[in-house]
């Protein structure tokens, strides 16, 4: 008996000891776990700064050595703690087994006959209680499921439904709201569809006769030269060359024909900043210039506005709202801040300016800001916001309208807003802008999207060629030079395409791919700016990389070529200027002092930049004195 008592005591103590042991180990493990969660050995400041230094000086052996040893230390620490966890778990397991075994023995030894339970519980009461609680719990469960089901948002359905909303007004039979028809004093429609006023004439072929920029002095107010463009001769005419009529310049090709562009300025100290005006509404669109007028757009939840500035002094000449448009949504669609409600750049043919917004509202204003027509194309089903810029030529305004509901390319009559043609495209949603080019004597509109890069006949809208080579969410627009079309997108590839009835990819690469910035080609060289800060130059004929340069900031704005230089602005607002050359020759990195995601516009002797908050007119003093 005494023996049993002793044993009971012994096992009782063993239980306590093993129990405390288990608890202690568990606690240590817990602390270890917390510790690991808190520390990130590879994200220490020391390592980060070493890596940063290393990036600046990639050849330094000493830095390599330091990084290696720090890295090794971190790994050692990590694996030691792993080992600790393993060992701790094993200890805990053995402790638990000891605990359980002692417990069992202790209980067996202590076992005595317990006083039997008297049936004190009234089974009737229990049964009633059970019924009640089962029903209550079940009811509560079903009830809360119902409540939750009413509280959950069915995003898929919203997606489908907004899709339907988009589809309805997107039919071709959209009403055109021609505003101020009667007020168009001094501007009457001629029978052949042309317009006449004191300054502009529309020829019978629809070719616009437009005010050309005058003189070489960038500061002189442009006189109005009437330069008729011959019908049927699609070559980029001098009026367009002498202006910056759309996103990425004439025909959207990423090339400006202006000269004397400044390469040196400084936003914060206002060096060479001729003028600077604060923007009132957000808009990630790029400035567009005709003669002395500079156009931008902006929008917020209240209104969508087109602004016209005098590019010589930065004075606001006029602003015009896009209001009272039938079919325009009461509430603007949900867009991301990155894109905004006014991402597409406006376009102008020197006679009118055209603007489109994320609401699908499109309007045409004359150069004085008077509305000529406006219509709604239906809210584009676009989860970031519609961002494809407009382009115009002759009598047409071209809209690349690729939404989640499918792709379309539309041409509206620039005088009436009526649809000239509407070509459905085999394309998923895209954010790129159409460009124009003359290929084999035919004027074509070239678009990029997922998966297709395609060319369309400007006059009929017929698809002339197409090749599937992109994927993902396509933002960069194409470039064209020397008979080759260039297209690229992040996660897809960069391809040089020989267009034609059976287009072929001449070369391709996937080393550096842009996410938003379009391509620019000049002089046998192609330039790419990626959203992660890489700027690279390729041989446009062979695809051989010529040089590359990395920046801490990514590029959203597109590179532009002017005067044998390539201008590209990173998101911090620093412009990087290089010589268009096979070797890397940097010509400066002037800064704006504000973040920027847009593409510059040019005029002779001047560059126009748009930051997050302001619009800048930049000229070099030398140019001013001219």
């Amino acid at each position: 008996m005494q023996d049993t008592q002793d044993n009971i005591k012994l096992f009782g103590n063993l239980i306590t000891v093993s129990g405390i042991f288990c608890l202690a180990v568990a606690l240590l493990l817990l602390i270890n776990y917390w510790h690991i969660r808190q520390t990130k050995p590879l994200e220490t400041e020391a390592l980060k700064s070493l890596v940063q230094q290393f990036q600046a000086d990639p050849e330094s052996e000493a830095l390599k050595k330091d990084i290696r040893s720090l890295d090794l230390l971190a790994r050692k620490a990590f694996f030691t703690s792993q080992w600790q966890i393993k060992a701790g778990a094993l200890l805990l397991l053995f402790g638990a087994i000891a605990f359980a075994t002692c417990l069992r023995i202790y209980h067996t030894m202590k076992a005595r006959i317990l006083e039997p339970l008297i049936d004190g519980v009234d089974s009737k009461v229990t049964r009633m209680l059970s019924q009640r609680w089962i029903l209550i719990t079940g009811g509560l469960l079903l009830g809360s499921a119902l409540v939750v089901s009413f509280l959950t948002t069915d995003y898929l359905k919203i997606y489908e439904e907004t899709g339907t909303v988009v589809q309805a007004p997107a039919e071709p039979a959209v009403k055109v709201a021609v505003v101020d028809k009667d007020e168009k004093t001094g501007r009457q429609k001629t029978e052949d569809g042309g317009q006449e006023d004191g300054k502009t004439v529309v020829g019978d072929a629809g070719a616009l006769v437009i005010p050309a920029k005058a003189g070489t002095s960038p500061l002189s107010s442009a006189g109005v030269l009437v330069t008729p463009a011959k019908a049927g001769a699609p070559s980029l005419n001098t009026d367009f060359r002498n202006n910056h009529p759309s996103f990425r310049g004439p025909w959207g090709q990423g090339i400006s024909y202006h000269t004397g562009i400044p390469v040196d300025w400084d936003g914060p100290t206002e060096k060479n900043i001729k003028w600077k005006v604060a923007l009132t509404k957000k808009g990630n669109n790029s400035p567009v210039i005709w003669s002395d007028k500079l156009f931008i757009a902006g929008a917020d939840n209240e209104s969508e506005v087109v602004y016209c500035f005098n590019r010589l002094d930065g004075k606001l000449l006029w602003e015009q709202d896009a209001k009272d448009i039938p079919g325009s949504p009461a509430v603007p669609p949900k867009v991301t801040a990155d894109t905004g409600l006014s991402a597409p750049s406006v376009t102008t043919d020197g006679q009118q300016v055209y603007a489109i917004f994320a609401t699908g509202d499109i309007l045409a204003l004359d150069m004085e800001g008077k509305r000529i027509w406006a219509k709604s194309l239906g809210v584009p089903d676009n989860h970031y916001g519609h961002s494809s810029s407009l382009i115009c030529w002759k009598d047409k305004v071209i809209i690349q309208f690729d939404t989640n509901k499918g792709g379309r390319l539309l041409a509206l009559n620039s005088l009436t807003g009526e649809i000239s043609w509407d070509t459905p495209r085999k394309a998923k949603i895209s954010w790129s802008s159409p460009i124009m080019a003359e290929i084999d004597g035919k004027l074509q509109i070239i678009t990029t999207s997922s998966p297709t890069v395609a060319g369309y006949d400007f006059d009929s809208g017929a698809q002339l060629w197409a090749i599937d080579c992109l994927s993902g969410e396509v933002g960069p627009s194409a470039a064209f030079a020397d008979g080759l079309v260039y297209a690229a997108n992040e996660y897809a590839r960069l391809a040089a395409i020989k267009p034609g009835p059976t287009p072929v990819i001449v070369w391709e690469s996937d080393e550096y791919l842009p996410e938003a910035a379009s391509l620019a080609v000049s002089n046998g060289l192609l330039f790419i700016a990626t959203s992660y800060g890489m700027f690279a130059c390729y041989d446009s004929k062979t695809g051989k990389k010529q040089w590359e340069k990395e920046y801490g900031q990514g590029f959203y704005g597109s590179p532009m070529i002017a005067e044998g230089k390539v201008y590209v602005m990173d998101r911090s607002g620093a412009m990087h200027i290089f010589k268009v050359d096979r070797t890397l020759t940097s010509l400066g990195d002037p800064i704006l002092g504000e973040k920027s995601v847009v593409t510059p516009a040019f005029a002779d002797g001047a560059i126009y930049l748009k930051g997050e908050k302001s619009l800048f007119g930049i000229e070099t003093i030398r140019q001013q004195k001219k």
Partner: protein
Amino acid sequence: MKWLKIILFLLPLLLAFSDLEAQQRFPKPEFHTKYTQPTPTTPEPRGVGMEFVDVLVLLVVLSLTSWFAIKKRSRNGILLLTVFSAIYFGFYRNGCICSVGSVQNVALAFADPKYVISLYALLFFLLPLIFSLFFGRVFCGAACPLGAIQDLLIYKPITIPAWLRKTLGFIPYLYLGLAVLYAATGTEFIICRYDPFIGIYRMNGPHLMIYLGIAFLLMGLFIARPYCRFFCPFGAILNVFSRFSRRHLSVFPTKCIQCKLCTTACPFEAIDFPDEEKTKPDTKSNTRRFILYMALIPVLMLAGSWIGSKSHVFLSKAHPDVYLAELLISHPELKTDSKNIDIQTFLASGKSLETLVAEAQVIRDKFYTGSWILGAFLGLVIGLMAMNQIIFRRREDYQANKGNCYSCGRCLDYCPVE
């Protein structure tokens, strides 16, 4: 590009072990070294022969448990088998595959014709059910590694009021329904994901899993087998099957002498006491209630299926594709979040949002069907559980409840009858 492919390949793994994100990962060095990365190797699956060793072991354990419980009436025999199962199925086989989780394989095999269930998984599912149909829950008694670890750590079990026990007994059916729904829609194997003891058996895994296991075991010191009683979805099926068992463990070998000695034996309160005269229900009112329940059950099922169908939207949000599609629709700005690996991988795949939404819609449709069936099932369970409370079976002896008894054999030693 290469990295993207690797990320793409890793995504399913990441999704499955998203809790592991918290652990450290070491990126490749920042610069070139002479070190060549070894090609990763995939561990060989357990050989077919070995799989059948597992099945054989299970068969032997089940047979021995039945023999110990019914013929031999030996608690020690069952205890030994329990220890063996904890070691073999638990620590050695790492708790995988277990019969509890096999429910999901079966559900998926039914729902997805492309999924071929292995014979191994099927046998692990069927054997315990077949045995329970004949001998009661002998699987729970000694073969189940989850039950074993809990059984071995019962310290001072407390009594839980009967109404509470019965009410909580609803959870396993809910868990079962959800597990089948999620498995059949190809969403996830939630039983495996939230298995509290796997982490302990493997001595590895997401920390939360391990702490959950420890919490269950600590709770189990006082509330005997908490997971078995109030969560286990396989137990819910075994419970039903076992009620039909012809030869079930009996507390007394030949005859109950009403000594009441076994009343304190069962830590799970699975011994039914004889009915006292005074608690005998009034037949008339009981019949009325019975008819009421008979009418109520279809109503509950209808309500359940309606609510179920309404709930399919939020239930389906657990599916990775639906989740991703909704995330992209509701927060398009996340596209630029380079840290969101799900979204980045999706973007890298070149798939359009439209396709993703279409796929998500297909899954959601499946959820619609699944959820209303689940709702109807739960309505039925609620009704039957409540109705069960008015069904009166005459009982004169102290006897193990065939549904709830785990055949652990504890009570056998208490009965003085030879």
